[in-house]
């Protein structure tokens, strides 16, 4: 660490601080009733500025930047900055989708963008946390804003229900997580991952059961956010009930941040427990959760007749695939997860963006019949949706294929062959429900009215998503190489 300490502090906190500042600015905009699209533009500027900071950090590839106080840590290493970039990408896409949709949906209350930026700030903190308390703060900052956003459509029973369900179960999961933090602290006497990992693997450590109890509660709390079965049940209901722009935000940003946190804990705290007695328990339990998630997500999606709800179940399924990378819990797994989440952000945001162009103003009307003959009516939208769905299904040469390749490879090289086989088998099922939508768009006659014209910001979002999906699939080495320079970091300190 050759840089002066002060400089590191400012630079690694940069993205989060910029987001916070811009959240305040947009809040002021809201107070003074500034034009909505100006607020959206300002939010985008904020995301862009934060991205510049994060990119700067990533390029420097700092091997162990951290800020400490009260024994707490905020990390600025390569995985943290890479995850920050993915979160910012997801936020930008969500803002673009929102801008196009909010006024049409009658949802453009002034607090929308400030809340979204605040939530993204929390996500960045969550992804950069180096200890359990920072993790908790990030998680809550992110979640509280999203609870409100999920219930954004006042007067819609579905949206209110989504917000309330998400909040009640989220608070419950937070309580589990916090109790897990308490138990983990009781076993290790620290909050920072590195200190805990050191304490757990120190000779003479004898509180394995207590530490494991803390670990399973942490797993349950974070498992809720990433939607591992059986903690996934809120997800289909909330994704369906929330306004589509909010669903977009949740499905990409919240998922990325939660996985970033889970990966870090898995490769430090869990890994150090794995070496001790009863250490084999954690991977087995995690493996069972992931297997259940793969099955529930993929088979649940088969049944859905609504495209939005199908995408919600597919989000559960993808949590399972990402879980394979968590299970590997090493450098390969982390890099695989970063790549997968980048691809996932692009393709999911793309799918929801197209969806929001098709559904009614009240978010209803996502039935698959509505997509019949879309290729003839709106070739651009149909081709875009087809591409992101093929990518979600894991077909080459799109980004989703490379992501799946990487996580399966990570799981197999870490020795979890059976789960990888299950993942490959369930991805055969996945093709069925993704292909169904494509079939409707291309091979069904349309009896639907023509769709309204596409808002320019939505078009931008779709183009970014599709171009990104293709580029990451054809030239994955560029982004992966950038991420991979970080090397072994997670367990570092």
């Amino acid at each position, binding site marked *: 660490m050759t840089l002066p300490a002060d400089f590191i502090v400012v630079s690694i906190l940069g993205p989060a601080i910029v987001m916070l500042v811009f959240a305040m600015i947009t809040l002021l905009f809201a107070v003074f009733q500034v034009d909505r699209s100006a607020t959206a533009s300002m939010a985008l500027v904020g995301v862009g500025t934060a991205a510049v900071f994060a990119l700067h950090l990533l390029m420097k590839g700092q091997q162990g930047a951290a800020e400490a106080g009260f024994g707490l840590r905020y990390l600025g290493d390569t995985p943290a900055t890479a995850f920050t970039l993915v979160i910012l990408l997801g936020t930008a896409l969500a803002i673009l989708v929102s801008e196009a949709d909010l006024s049409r949906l009658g949802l453009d209350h002034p607090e929308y963008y400030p809340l979204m930026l605040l939530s993204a700030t929390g996500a960045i903190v969550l992804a950069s946390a180096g200890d359990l308390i920072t993790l908790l703060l990030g998680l809550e900052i992110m979640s509280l804003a999203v609870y409100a956003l999920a219930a954004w459509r006042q007067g819609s029973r579905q949206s209110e229900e989504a917000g309330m369900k998400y909040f009640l179960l989220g608070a419950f999961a937070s309580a589990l997580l916090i109790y897990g933090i308490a138990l983990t602290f009781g076993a290790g006497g620290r909050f920072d991952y590195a200190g805990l990992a050191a304490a757990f693997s120190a000779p003479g450590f004898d509180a394995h059961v207590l530490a494991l109890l803390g670990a399973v509660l942490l797993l349950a709390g974070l498992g809720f956010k990433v939607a591992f079965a059986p903690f996934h049940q809120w997800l289909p209901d909330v994704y369906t009930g929330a306004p589509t722009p909010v669903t977009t935000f949740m499905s990409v940003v919240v998922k990325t941040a939660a996985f970033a946190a889970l990966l870090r804990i898995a490769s430090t705290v869990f890994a150090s427990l794995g070496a001790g007695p009863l250490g084999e328990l954690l991977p087995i339990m995690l493996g069972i959760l992931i297997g259940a998630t793969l099955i529930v997500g993929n088979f649940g999606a088969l*049944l859905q007749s609504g495209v939005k709800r199908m995408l919600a179940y597919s989000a559960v399924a993808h949590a399972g695939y990402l879980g394979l990378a968590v299970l590997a819990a090493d450098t390969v797994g982390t890099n695989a997860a970063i790549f997968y989440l980048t691809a996932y952000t692009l393709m999911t945001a793309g799918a929801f963006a197209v969806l929001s162009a098709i559904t009614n103003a009240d978010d209803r009307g996502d039935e698959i019949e509505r997509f019949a003959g879309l290729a003839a009516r709106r070739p651009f939208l149909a081709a875009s949706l087809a591409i992101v769905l093929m990518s979600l299904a894991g077909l080459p040469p799109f980004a989703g294929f490379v992501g799946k390749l990487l996580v399966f490879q990570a799981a197999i090289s870490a020795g979890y062959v059976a789960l990888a086989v299950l993942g490959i088998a369930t991805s055969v099922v996945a093709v069925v429900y993704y292909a169904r939508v494509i079939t409707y768009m291309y091979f069904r006659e349309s009896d639907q009215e023509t769709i309204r014209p596409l808002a320019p910001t939505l078009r931008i979002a779709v183009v970014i998503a599709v171009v990104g999906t293709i580029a990451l699939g054809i030239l994955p080495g560029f982004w992966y190489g950038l991420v991979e320079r970080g090397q072994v970091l997670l367990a570092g300190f």
Partner: protein
Amino acid sequence: MTQDVVSWAALAPALALLGALVNGLLGARLREPLPGIVASVAVGAGFVLSLVAFFAFAGRGEAVVVPLWDYLAVSGVELALGFHLDQLSLLMMLVITGVGALIHVYSIGYMHADSGFARYFAYLNLFVAAMLVLVMADSYLLMFVGWEGVGVCSYLLIAFWFKQGTNVDAARKAYIVNRIGDAGFLLAMFLMFRTFGTLDVAAVNAAVGAFAFGAGAITAIGLLLLVAATGKSAQIPLHVWLPDAMAGPTPVSALIHAATMVTAGVYLIARASPIFATSPEASAAVAWVGAATALIAAFVAFAQTDIKRVLAYSTISQLGFMFVAVGVGAYSVAVFHLVTHAFFKALLFLVAGSVIHALGGEQDVRRMGGLGTRMRITGTTALVGTLAIAGVPLLAGFFSKDAILVHTFSSTLVEDYGAYFLYAVLLVSAVMTAGYMFRWYYTVFCGAERLSKATGAAVHESPRVMTVPLVVLAVGSVLTGYLGLPAFAFPNWIEGWLAPVTAAVTFTHPALWIEWLLLLVSVLAAALGLGLGYWAYHLQKGAPAARLGVGRLAAFGRSGAGFDALYRNAVVGPTEGTAGALSIVDRDILDRGMASGVTAAGLLARVTTLWQSGFVRAYALAMLCGVVALVLVVVVAGVRA
């Protein structure tokens, strides 16, 4: 490297892709037949490039590698993409672009006045690009890209006439069955990466040498590759999609479902020949899958009354022959049969297309007959194709099929796994091949006309744009056989050409008189099949409809009815049962959102969503149950420890 003429052939897929882009983006503005010409020129230019490269390559040993770009570096292993041009890939490219170009030209006539004219050629060009990538790939990773690409194009083309109800279902069924094979490919790829640390085809083939004969990991990889090949090449039990795939336009059936894509499985095994040559278990599995498929599909072909479905089962059966060939280690022979089959089967399909075209869409052979005199060129070329596939001496199919039979007879690789039984099964299948092809030819082109008046009056020979490709393919169906004359007495070019790129497997060399005897047996098999067909369909008297239906299969056995019943119960029953079950899966799972829930997948899906009650407290209960289970596991384990 770039100065090398051979490496120019790497442009062939790019040309086809360009053609697809032009037709896909501008096709709506191009007037017929311009999209067809663009597409044909794109593929034709690829053929010229391949031809030049082929001759420039002759006499060389080293493969020409054309690097594309670095793809990924995982765990310190560079995965680079590139094209690998060697004897095998150049031969495949010639077939794909050569036969492909002819079929493109033919399609200009066949698809005349179709509303999706440009779209059709865009898909077809895209297919050629993907297929070329598949055979030119220097790594299994890139091969998988092509492998998936041809699957998608096949899906698009089967569903091309999507307004007819079942076509889309057929396409989806084809695609999903293929995905099962693809899962095998993926797993094989991961296992290769784990075992060899690379996905480069040449490196993998070189690394296999370090493993003991019959090593477990090699056998596992071989079996997984077999799963992949079984899906793509429509072998039992994953064959069910190919007959339904006939819903696509007939030139598509000729190109994709006869000449090229379905042979990808054979290509894959030939490419990975060192793996199979090291594992007799995997090889035997390949051979037996092939033999079973050859026999059963030949049986089923007799029962078909659709002019294209007969050919579809025939294709499955012939692919079974190729599987036996690669299974017994005769890789160059398999590729030889692949090449000859590409010509005569493409010819037969285009003939069928010409007939369908002339009859205004009629596909039932029971309503054809006597067309040979009214469609002279089609009829004559059909005869050439029929005799070629039947194995009549001096035509292409004879030499390649005889080579498969001889090599099966004298195999050492699968000696312990019933090589002589394989030979017997293939011999029976060969007799049946001649029989059902005679039936096909006779019912369509000979005998009395059974056309309805309206269609009968309109029968006409197809335009030149369609008949010229037929003639070219017919010539090819004769001449390609001379690439691989029986090696014991004649010069055999193809064996020497492919020797550097396929694993060397030893065969016993029987005495010369046995070789001649085997040759004679092959001749007799063809003669027997054709003779029985002649007897059953021409000499036997009776009402034409009865003679042409399923029931006349009885003529094949001395105890006619028993054989017929056996065939119907043992073969058609299960086959159609499987197809029926699959279509139930299709209908219920795919279309009705699994309303019936009878299938395993349906039940699983229902169970997974059953507890999605909508009640917050139920969700909290599920979460708490999960947590309690996790905690209990830890506590119990902690107490016991």
